[in-house]
């Protein structure tokens, strides 16, 4: 396959970037999208040009590192998959493909296609956990958890923190990510003690990081590689409202 790539090149966060065009003549349809970048980077090195920086690691759709905005879609045209799971057979010979980094105020560009997503970690640190020290846990079967509850928790907990939801949202809102985390704990009996505080603190941190407001368009869920459902956003809204009504901690 012959492919024309237009790739966002940006030296660092202080320098403006631009799209640069590359021609690739020998692309196999069985190649993954990132393997195409490996090939391109090999060619660039041979030519003495700096390679294109991008985040990637597991290349099997679970670590959440890869993050390319391809032809206007987070993770490209295939639904329910990450950039690393996309293969060239999803494109046609002769296609032009535009590849950009995630665009969001809370995710500044580091270099080329690599962005800083540590805002997600700070939101998790604000309350995305159950406070239980090592060694203090009761027997694992002491508290039964109904299967549907465990399944719902698992549906939410599958989020890989890739940030596609933010990139896909016109407001760059992080609601789907935050909702997935809040939901995961809110439905489990183990998560009850800190339930109100958690929702409140995580939402406050989300706002502080500069993510936009949620206008419930659903673009996030469509582009989410783990198909995290909008139901979790509805749950987060209930949790948050409930927290506001019951909590003593009313600022934020």
């Amino acid at each position: 396959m012959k492919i024309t790539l237009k790739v966002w090149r940006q030296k660092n966060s202080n320098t403006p970037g631009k799209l640069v065009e590359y021609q690739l003549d020998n692309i196999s349809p069985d190649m993954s999208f990132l393997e195409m970048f490996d090939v391109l980077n090999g060619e660039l090195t041979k030519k003495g040009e700096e390679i294109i920086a991008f985040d990637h690691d597991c290349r099997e759709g679970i670590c959440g590192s890869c993050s390319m905005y391809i032809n206007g879609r987070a993770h490209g045209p295939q639904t329910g998959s990450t950039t690393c799971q996309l293969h060239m057979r999803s494109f046609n010979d002769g296609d032009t493909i535009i590849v950009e980094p995630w665009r969001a105020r809370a995710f500044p560009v580091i270099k080329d296609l690599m962005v800083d997503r540590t805002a997600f970690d700070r939101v998790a640190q604000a309350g995305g956990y159950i406070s239980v020290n090592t060694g203090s846990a009761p027997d694992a079967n002491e508290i039964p958890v109904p299967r549907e509850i465990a399944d719902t928790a698992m549906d939410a907990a599958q989020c890989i923190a890739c940030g596609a939801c933010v990139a896909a949202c016109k407001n760059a809102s992080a609601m789907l990510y935050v909702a997935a985390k809040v939901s995961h704990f809110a439905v489990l009996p183990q998560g009850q003690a800190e339930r109100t505080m958690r929702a409140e603190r995580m939402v406050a941190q989300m706002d502080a990081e500069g993510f936009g407001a949620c206008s419930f368009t659903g673009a996030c869920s469509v582009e989410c590689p783990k198909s995290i459902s909008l139901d979790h956003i509805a749950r987060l809204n209930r949790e948050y409202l409930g927290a506001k009504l019951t909590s003593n901690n009313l600022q934020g």
Partner: protein
Amino acid sequence: MELDSKIPEGPLAEKWSRHKFGLKLVNPANKRKYDIIVVGTGLAGASAAASLAELGYNVKAFTFHDSARRAHSIAAQGGINAAKNYQNDGDSVFRLFYDTIKGGDYRAREGNVYRLAEVSVNIIDQCVAQGVPFAREYGGLLANRSFGGAQVSRTFYARGQTGQQLLLGAYHALSRQVANGKVKLITRTEMLDVIVVDGKARGIVTRNLLTGAIESHSAHAVLLCTGGYGNVFYLSTNAMNSNVTAAWRAHKKGAYFSNPCYTQIHPTCIPVKGDYQSKLTLMSESLRNDGRVWVPKNQQDAEKIRKGQMKANDIPEDARDYFLERRYPSFGNLVPRDVASRNAKYVCDEGRGVAPTGLAVYLDFADAIKRDGRKTIEAKYGNLFEMYEKIVGDNPYETPMMIYPAVHYTMGGLWVDYNLMTSVPGLYALGEANFSDHGANRLGASALMQGLADGYFVIPYTVGDYLATIGPGDKVAVDHPAFKEAEQRVHDMNNRLLSIKGSKTVDEYHKALGHIMWDYCGMSRNAEGLKKAKKMIQDLRAEFWQNVRVLGTNEEMNQSLEHAGRVADFLELGELMVDDALHREESCGGHFREEYQTEEGEALRDDANFTYVAAWEYTGDNKPEVLHKEELVFENVKLTQRSYK
């Protein structure tokens, strides 16, 4: 140096509790006077960092990822073993211990493995309390499955994403300690050296991957939780960034490296497609419960398949060779990982492999679908079939899957004693980075167990003993010349890599090394091949240092430079793996020497001469390493020959 494993005296079942009682404690008020460095934030690192911070120590945790949650533990699929015996099917701590020792082909320490089995039950409690959404029965209790041929159901799982959920549990615990200010989390930073002063580990030197800044960090103890070295093969199921650098640089500072030749090849991975291939994807072992493995009986048919002139379904039943069922009538398709892998290699070597490369065998679900219906198979394996289709572009409900073995896990690693301390006092290795619990072969669902056992339940006790012995004052500041010298060495190495300006990319060298390792030190090895490989690696290494091309500078985000440093270390480790494989004149677990096999072609151990842990000591650049032996003592199990006929 004498190798002292520090295995406690006394009956097996009492060793750990006696030992814990004997360990020195750090007074709660004094814990905040100690600094501990944790390198790596996978299962072992994140669980250790969180647990130590909960105790009150000051922890600095390092990861080269942008987030602690991206460590490769996240990709583990199958599950985690624990001797809970919730299913009332006869499991016990002793049985889990026994299965692990036997599965490791009697090349692991009894004391360590028993402790692992013992704390396995606490891990599940801890994870459930953290909110890990394990699979449940309708009654709300935890579900289990049997895994990897185990005869009891002791594997806990969270769909096909158990590693992800366990790592998130540890990541959440870690995040809480970051918020509490007890863990300082340093991301996008790679450890490039360990500092040893007066025979004790004193800290590390790192490179900030965003700015290139080379920095020193001092502490009372350093924990390496940096995973395995499977990427020495270039193609493996490991993540792209997984590497041996932290462990290897520690090795060069005096930490012995044990059993590097013990590598695990997983039988069910998606085969290599082309030269551009960057990594291999595992298809869960559970597929062998229903899939039948076969290749055509004759080479002509196989060749036609390879050329695309015939399809799998064109081969009539009587022209198919279900080689595992034929050779192992009682275990059939469920033989252990190493046996299944080796047999796939043999039939491909005979020219009967399928796929254009000739390196693939079929895993066929047609009979299972006929027997149980498509619905049932879909319920069991739907997500795996989908994943396969995404990668290969074939529908496994209609055409048999193609699979081939791939490097998956490394049992070898830094030598540690019972306290997880390496041969350098104050330097510890946890999880896959150490060699300790899996012997020559790891059982399915045991890697997650070991990572979390080390981090949650072993190191919090054992590190205290060391710290209490040295005292809070025994620390070296970062302005000590040892730190400055190490910083300089790191600078020099990076500058050297950048100044070669040769003609080949780092990737090309990495691939070349991978080919050598796979061909001569992979699924089966022999003396002649290993000797050849040793020479080839030496030559490749020499060429690398003359002809590699790394562009850009040190003072910026530079992924080529990062990769170059890691490949430089792999080029040294590869030679040690070959030395280790050559010296071990027996076959055991993942180490199969063609010269040492039974008449039926199975691994033939030599217990009289090789019942020991090989621990290699680095003696200088391009000098032969010195072998130390730690004899393994078996008091509770009888060594037997594995048989799966």
